[in-house]
């Protein structure tokens, strides 16, 4: 399902062909049993082939590289408290980019103020990346995924490629003595 378009920079910036996403809008239930949806902010975990992320105080985002939108939607409806939440397919709302490689964190740091150095993957957060509003999924020390509203995707791709090109440059011009 995922057919990346690979650009030839280091670290790699891969634009994914399609992923499925579903948004569950609603507040966590205040009860001893909060149900299967995680309540901790920035939470990201994998359940049965899809990721569950809490990137907003009043909503969750589910995403999958393998499940179709309709199947993911069905899974989300099983998880959600239907009486208090709204489950919506947003698979076409977002486009996804994977950034992988040694300087992947520097690519993100080229426009995002979040400190991923002290964060433990997996985690996800809504953030600002340069002048784009995105969702950043910190998947592993050298792997990030960025979700963005599709209308901005072309511009973001151009930005990511440029950031990746500069990310591997040393911090200084090399002069020490």
């Amino acid at each position: 399902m995922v057919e990346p378009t690979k650009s030839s920079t280091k670290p790699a910036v891969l634009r994914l062909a399609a992923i499925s996403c579903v948004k569950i809008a609603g507040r966590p239930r205040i009860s001893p049993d909060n149900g299967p949806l995680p309540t901790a902010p920035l939470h990201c975990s994998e359940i049965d082939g899809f990721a569950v992320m809490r990137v907003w105080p009043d909503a969750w985002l589910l995403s999958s590289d393998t499940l179709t939108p309709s199947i993911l939607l069905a899974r989300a409806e099983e998880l959600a408290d239907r009486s208090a939440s709204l489950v919506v397919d947003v698979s076409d709302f977002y486009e996804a980019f994977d950034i992988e490689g040694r300087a992947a964190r520097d690519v993100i740091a080229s426009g995002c103020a979040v400190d991923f150095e002290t964060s433990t993957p997996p985690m996800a957060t809504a953030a600002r990346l340069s002048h784009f509003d995105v969702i950043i999924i910190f998947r592993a020390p050298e792997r990030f995924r960025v979700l963005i509203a599709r209308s901005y995707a072309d511009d973001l791709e151009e930005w990511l490629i440029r950031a990746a090109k500069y990310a591997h440059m040393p911090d200084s011009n090399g002069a020490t003595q």
Partner: protein
Amino acid sequence: MTGRRTSSSGEMPSKTLTFTFDGRPLHGVEGDTLASALLANGVGLVGRSFKYHRPRGILTAGPEEPNALLEIGEGNLREPNTRATEVRLYDGLRARSQNAWPSLRRDVLSINDIASPLLPAGFYYKTFLSPAGAWPLYERFIRRAAGLGRPTEDADPSDADERWAHCDVLVVGGGPAGLAAARAAVRSGLRTILCEQDFLPGGTLLAGAPPIEGMEARAWIAHVTRELDAAGARTLLRAVAFGVYDHNLVAISQRFVEPGQSAADGGPAHRLWFVRARNIIVASGAIERPLLFANNDRPGIMMSSAARAYVLRHNIVPGRRIVVATNNDKAWHDAFAIHDRGAPVSAIVDSREEIVSQLLEGARSRDIAIHANSAVTDTKGRFALASLAIGNLRDGTFTRLAADLLCMSGGYSPTVHLYAHARGKVAWNTASSMFTPADSGLPIVCVGAARGVLTLGESLRDGHDAACRAAAAAGKLPPPAPAYDVSDERFEQNGAAPRPTTVGSKIFVDFQNDVTAKDISIAAGEGYVSAEHLKRYTTLGMGTDQGKTSGVNGLAVLAGLSGQSISGAALTTFRPPYLPVSLTALARGMIASKLEPVRRTPLSKLLEAEGAEFVNSGLWRRARYFRSSGSNLHAAAIHEAKLVRGSVGITEVSTLAKFEIGGQDAAVFLDRVYATPVSSLKIGRARYGLMLRDDGFVFDDGTIWRLEADRYLVTGTTANTGAVLRHLEFCRDVVFPDLSVNIVDVTEQWAGVAIAGPQSRQALQMIFPDCELSDAALPYLGLFETTFADRGCRIARISFSGERCYEVYVPSRLGAQLWSQLRAQGIMPYGLEALELLRIEKGYPGVGQEINGRTTPADLGITLGSKAKAAFIGCAGLRRDAFAEAGRLQLVGLTSEDGREISEGAVLREPRATGASEGHVTSAGFGVGVGGPVALALLKDGARRHGEILDAADLLRKRHVPVRVANPTLFDPAGARLRG
């Protein structure tokens, strides 16, 4: 000036570099700054001062340099006003002097120096006063003379990027205190960043220092930097921390190439760092203060610490007859150090009466003449220093000494700028004659010379201790202190803040802006007695050096004039940037087309291939018209509009705001948010939605679809998407928190195509052959859900054109497929411009035109029906008396009486009237249904004035068009084409 290289250091770099200055080829070596290379070539005259065009030389060795402002590079890489002391020399560097014509030695405007009595501080403002009529004459000359440097008019080809970083400790300054702090921080296990503005770490250690921990100074620097690298600390060189902002955010501008150079391998020339630090340790050193005496600005006069740097760091002897003038011990040690390196110091002049015996012995052992209780009062030499006059402060006698280099030192002022940015307070320390940082409890501290600690051993310990305190606060174990028992030069006391040694007009306080002690006296005499007023009246401290060498001296002069102590004075407010920052760096690549992101619709690429001409609608790129429709915008829009009225056309409507609203209280919520009724809406039906502000004015309009019992889709204007979402969320969270309702933005989830025209149903049926599309099954404002390419699809019979119309929404990825299938049927596209023509003659108000933030539903001719007595946002505002008064601007339609085009923005007046208008034209175009020019307008009491003939006056183009006032629905008022 007679500069030459020494050969005594044993560290001569091997690579020779070639550069030019004012076209003259010169040579330097790897590791030189442009300033040191110029001095090594005997170039002492480097520019002309700003106002008086006096010959000027290099004063300092650092970024505080006020004189050596040169133009570096050529063409689109040219950078004016670049401090020669900061530029690292490279092969092929081209430097030019500034502010002189036709040459440095023969400058026409040097006449300003002679005319200086006519150009004191404030002269500029006085030219406005009297004679006032002569100002146009002055202005021409002043404008030509004003300014410094020539900016290039070409776009900078350099690029810059941005980097965010976080750390436990940010150390600003890589001198001894900074290196000690950084090392202690990494040894404590703290995440550490070290930032140094020079291209080498070390600071003053590079200009000679005693051994540290048993190592020669440069070896110690290398040892510490290796330890920092091994521990994973970030060391940023050629990086200037130029501002401290809220919550310890520090902005740093880093260069990867020198001015005039292009970046190698297409990389960035600059990087703008944003560092969030738990603790900031400012180890930015201290700036030496000039002495104040007549003609203290000649080429060949420089700061004592600068001379030391040029001799010991760059192996240059900048003079043959060197005199040191001072009021403190440090300059004596500088004199000894440069003398021992082969730069012959002939005399030391010290204004103090009592001098430490070791210093006196040191001078005598070197055959350096001593002039105690004396001060330099004047100098001679036009393009280079030739001699100086020394006055004895006790007996008033004068001595003249020949000299080609005068090294002066008036003490040191800690560089507290960054500390002040963070709201740290500074106060005058009388004992040490400097403004020092006061303990403020902020997570930013100054160490070393930046705190007024001027000896090497104490600076090292100070830096170490500050990092240890940061470690302890973080719960980390601080490391033991290294053996910083440096047998450093004793610095008994700082020099007192300098006062002028003579009375005269050429005692320069601010070198860059040519502000003299006399200017300060004039300002004080005219009542400008605060530092802030003094600054703005005299321009002291307003040059690109921001008064780094003049601030304290200026305050001292002012205090002396008023007979007060400087301790009662306050420094002017320090604001970022500490040093000039390149606009290219600040732009970070977001220039021209990259300034803002461009939002592309799901059909953008397809429409582009079909010959669409696009227009920027906010950030969106939308199809305005299609080139196949006509040779220009006007012709194409009319052609496309006729197509829609006559048969069928398709247009993209993907950008409309779209939100799903769901929950058991969704209907109640929407009833309260919209002025139009919602809870009576049936499933499978849509309704026009009018959203008001609290004050009763219309905020946005759109449609409300009922998909399921508790699930709705609302649409709104493209431009208002963000504002409407914020409003809905605010209403949910704050205004109606008791309601159970959720909102999901689905604007980008759906690609939308509107199929409009009398044959639209047939067109739609071709794509959805199995769907029942009769008027009975799908009446006007009906909707249903189906599938397209095995994905969910929504179809609503809604119109913004006044024709039968179906809006089809498919998942965005399928938008191109839908469009292509429609086009394959031969259906032609239309753009925004045609849509505009269609809606105008139907009287549909547009956001930003008729819905302009000052119109109510009644103004727009919209009655609220059953909602008139209900509670909704804006209902209270609507009940205000003013909305019922006569004279309100109300929506009307206009037709052209003589067939001429009506101008948008034209004012409406009685024919042949002048003066106040009765209203204005809000939208105008060619009505293809009406068959002539039409417009919408807001007209006073418009609803009662149908049939009147008015003048639509385009005052800008001086056009007057007679128009007839009518009901806004100029075409198909009954709506038969819409509903039939």
